């Protein structure tokens, strides 16, 4: 926060102070300096009134305490991070609420990391469970080798019992099914980047034959950050991303990648997060240098690459990747005349009950999906309000947080119930889980709607 008072000391009682030189009062403010953020807080408590956890859990002291107040208390050497930090779900609504630019989620991530590092027994059930949940990709990689068997086993009541009693993973939820073919398997089978380059070229040629121009779109290339969930569980979303971007003439590349780190931040597993982030930054930095923009279909993945990486890590290229990462619809809206393309489209879909993920909201993407689908004939989407879905990734999977998670989600469930639709729509895979869990609705991704509107049926087979 360059505008903080710490950076720009005020100069009361210094008349005619052209010679004024700021004194370095806080020498420790050299490394990861959260002091300006703490000082920017003027205690209006707006963050607290926006915290969905504090709203339903009277034991939780809220973001103002977890962030600036805890930071200040920690200046005392005998003060430890309060265990209540683990109740924060990392929805980041406090960031959106703060009128004074206090980096609350950065403070929470840092505090949580320190708490887990110093105070959680590495042999405890909780630590093991959280490690498993936040490294979902590892589990999924193994499980998806034998998807039918895994789905069968995960659905068994004995498995749920073990998860519940031994690991503390709630048995109330159904484990998401693994796809019988992962997105990456499909992608390789289809011919990988080479095939994509060819398809994109054909799409450009088809649209330019009308204008008889040269192929001006050769530099239209994007690198897809699909994340684990779209790979293992919802490959139809990832396929829709590929087909929609190719239809607009973009060559898509799908590099090796790790989890974005979102569940690791939320569980205080900062070492795991650092390793994953480093791998991703190294990979995508090179692609950005080669002229690729980075596209995410999950709004928490894009949040991690754009905000959390630069806030928490400092690898070479972190800022470069952050500055060239986009959410998929956002990118098309900025780089294509999406409204015009959609104006001619006509597609019959059921009506949707649309939920904006909190992390999408923090990227200025609230309203985007509603605006985009409003341009499509035959598609109606109803906003279900601005409440949090309550699941916040792995949070709602934990026994001790399940009820909190469902209590937070109640407002959204009610609005979905009263909306004139029986299919859900959202960008975030875990919000989708919660929406399905609370209502029984089938949940779609906006890219799937775009695919239905813009991609010819014959191309959807491929």
């Amino acid at each position, binding site marked *: 926060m360059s505008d903080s008072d710490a950076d720009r000391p005020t100069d009361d009682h210094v008349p005619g102070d052209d010679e004024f030189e700021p004194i370095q009062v806080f020498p420790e403010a050299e490394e990861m300096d959260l002091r300006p953020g703490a000082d920017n807080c003027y205690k209006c408590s707006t963050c607290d009134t926006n915290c969905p956890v504090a709203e339903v859990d*009277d034991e939780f002291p809220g973001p103002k305490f977890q962030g600036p107040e805890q930071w200040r208390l920690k200046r005392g050497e005998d003060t430890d991070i309060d265990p209540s930090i683990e109740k924060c779900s990392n929805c980041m609504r406090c960031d959106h609420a703060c009128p004074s630019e206090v980096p609350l989620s950065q403070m929470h991530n840092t505090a949580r990391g320190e708490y887990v590092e110093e105070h959680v027994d590495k042999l405890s059930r909780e630590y093991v469970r959280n490690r498993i949940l936040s490294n979902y990709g590892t589990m999924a990689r193994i499980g998806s080798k034998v998807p039918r068997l895994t789905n069968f086993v995960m659905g068994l009541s004995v498995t749920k019992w073990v998860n519940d009693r031994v690991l503390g993973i709630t048995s109330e939820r159904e484990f998401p099914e693994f796809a019988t073919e992962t997105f990456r398997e499909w992608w390789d089978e289809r011919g990988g980047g080479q095939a994509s380059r060819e398809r994109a070229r054909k799409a450009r040629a088809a649209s330019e034959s009308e204008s008889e121009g040269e192929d001006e779109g050769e530099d239209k290339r994007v690198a897809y950050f699909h994340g684990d969930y779209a790979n293992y569980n919802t490959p139809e979303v990832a396929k829709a991303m590929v087909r929609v971007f190719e239809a607009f003439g973009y060559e898509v590349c799908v590099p090796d990648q790790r989890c974005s780190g979102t569940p690791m931040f939320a569980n205080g597993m900062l070492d795991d997060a650092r390793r994953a982030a480093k791998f991703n930054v190294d990979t995508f930095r090179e692609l950005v240098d080669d002229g690729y923009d980075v596209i995410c279909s999950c709004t928490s993945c894009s949040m991690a690459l*754009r*905000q959390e990486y630069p806030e928490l890590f400092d690898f070479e290229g972190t800022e470069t990747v952050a*500055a060239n990462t986009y959410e998929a619809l956002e990118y098309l809206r*900025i780089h*294509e*005349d999406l409204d015009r393309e959609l104006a001619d489209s006509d597609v019959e879909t059921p009506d949707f009950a649309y939920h904006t993920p909190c992390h999408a909201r923090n990227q*200025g993407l609230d309203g985007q999906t509603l605006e985009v689908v409003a341009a499509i004939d035959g598609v109606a989407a109803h906003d279900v309000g601005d409440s949090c879905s309550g699941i916040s990734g792995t949070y709602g999977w934990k026994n001790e947080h399940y009820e909190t998670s469902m209590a937070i989600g109640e407002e959204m469930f009610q609005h979905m119930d009263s909306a004139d639709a029986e299919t859900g729509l959202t960008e975030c895979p875990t919000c989708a889980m919660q929406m399905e869990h609370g209502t029984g609705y089938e949940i779609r991704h906006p890219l799937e709607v775009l695919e239905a509107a813009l991609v010819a049926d014959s191309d959807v087979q491929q």
Partner: protein
Amino acid sequence: MAIEDDVLVIGGGLAGVTAALAAAEYGDRVRLLSYKQSTLRHASGLIDVLGYAPGGCESGDGDGDGSGNGDGTGESNGDGEERRDGLLVDPFDAIPGLPAGHPYERVGLERVREALLFFDSIVGDAYEGGHTAANALVPTVGGTVKPTARYPASVAHGLASDSRPTLLVGFETMPAFDAPLSAAHLRAADVPFPVRGATIPFPGELRDDAKRTRYAHVLDWDESVDTGTGAGDAPARAVLAETIRPHLEREARLGLPAVLGEEHPGVIRRDLEERLGVDVFEVPTGPPSLPGMRLEDLLYGALEEYGVRVTTGVPVVDHEASDGGRRVDHVLVDRKGQEVPYRADEYVLATGGLVGKGVRSSRDGVTEPIFDCHVPHPEDRYDWFVDDAFGDQPFARFGVAVDHELRPLDAREEPEFENLRAAGGVVGGADFAAEKSGSGVSLATGYAAGRRAGAEVGK
């Protein structure tokens, strides 16, 4: 491609929302961009127009220097309030005498009146005060009275002009409203009614520093709480009424801090009134303010109804001009690292003043960060303030200077851009805290700027 609209309003407070609604009346495609959640929830929910004559102004029954010096009878409180002489009876009488450059002088008396009517038409029964041009006097948590033109229906029974005996009740865990102290201040200010204060525990077992919204929601949902009398659990509103009952003597009205529900304030008030047989009113608080949140809900509901597109969470950081610098071509929104262009025909700047960060200051000067509009201010920064903390502070009036169409003016007093208008706190020339004119200036300039922008699109 930029994201395209007809009118783009930057800022989600009272001025921005009013501008967006006024522009949308023309059928234009309007977008409102707000960096953060609306600051309406910081506001008391009262709509003041002009409570005190500003300094150097001969109008009304002002105290001449209008400097905001307190007379010692009041303490500052959540509203930044201080009771003084020079209180205006009718703000509209005083407006024609305001100095050149004051936002009301810029838009003119008729626009101020229209803006109030426009506000009335949007909020409907939720607000009162439109029956008279005179200022109403609303008791505040600090025990002062605030002159205001419109007020939420929930405070109506509390007006200081009402002579009925009054009981104020505060909650042990909510020190922002000390009811006995507040009552003592009101008595010291010679209000024309007997007033006492009492402090009680709030029903249920909220934590000591519970969020103000939790109080409201316990009553909204009439949560089941322990009666505290050994009689088991009962609905929260009933328990609240029974806890208050022994404190009521012959009072005809009861004032509580403004936490009586976020969603159902009318129902909760009526419920308490029926149980206790007295009129119930709310005393507005500082942030987080429930009356402010209710106003936010009302106005954002209206935006949805009017078809205004709302984008939040990301700041506007810069602009590109066209037409040799005469027009704003597009603005750039920082979406976490990417600068995304938003284009419109007309723009309204409603980003707030020094506190809202629509105006920034540093050792080098005072600036408007998005369009780099000229902000008049003395070159020597020791002339920005006076030593008396409550004196006539020059910085309080810092903001862009505007023409009669509310276009920001450059140093040569020419419009900075043909298609940019300013509204609310970013407009200089008014010390809203001393005058009690913040809401009125936002409404009047927001309404005038939005109308003008909306009309220009049609041309």
